[in-house]
């Protein structure tokens, strides 16, 4: 279970990333964030976001029609 869940369903690029960044900032290092999104572009974008920022993408999966990303705030 993630420390924080962010509902970004229905939001389009770049809002899921921007909201996720804000949510990560509110978490201590090592804590996890689950992002739920419906934007198919988010799959590649969260991979790119995590590679660039150094946050760890622990999981990227589909739950029905929702994309679920689990990110560990590392820094």
């Amino acid at each position, binding site marked *: 279970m993630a420390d924080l869940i962010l509902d970004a369903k229905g939001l389009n690029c*770049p809002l899921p990333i921007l909201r996720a*960044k804000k949510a990560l900032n509110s978490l201590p*290092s090592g804590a996890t964030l689950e992002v739920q999104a419906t934007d198919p572009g988010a799959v590649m974008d969260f991979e790119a976001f995590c590679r660039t920022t150094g946050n760890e993408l622990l999981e990227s999966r589909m739950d029905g029609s929702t994309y679920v990303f689990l990110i560990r705030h590392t820094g």
Partner: protein
Amino acid sequence: MLDDHNAKSMSIIVTKGTLDWAYPPFILATTAAAMGLEVTMFFTFYGLHLLKKDLDLKVSTLGNPGMEMPMGGMHMAMPNIMAALPGASALTTTMMKNLIKKKGVASIEELRDLAVEADVRLIACQMTMDLFEIKREDMIEGLDIGGAASWVEVATKSDINLYI
């Protein structure tokens, strides 16, 4: 923290002031800032309108045959001769704003607020302010006001420089 010290930077020259063209610079600026880059936006010519307190952005299909909007499962383009008629731009603008809302796309106002919040540096072009008689008090707070040299200085130190 790693994600706040990426040490990369990006500058964008923003030259266009229509609703459609306002998106690329603000989307890229806010996203790059979220990814840890230092971002500077330089607003010149029609792009300067994007810094006004009250945004009243419009879009026109005139001279833009590539613009098609989804309608009833199809895509509609407007011939130039119709796009030139009075009210055509207002109609197209309303249609696009409705689409933006329906598709969960952020408004320009929202993206601009997020850019300010993410400490994106906004530079307004002094020459354009003089040219188009745009007053400082009609623009949002927190702007730097400068000219070409201000952007060149930023650009020489930036990893990415874009002109939109």
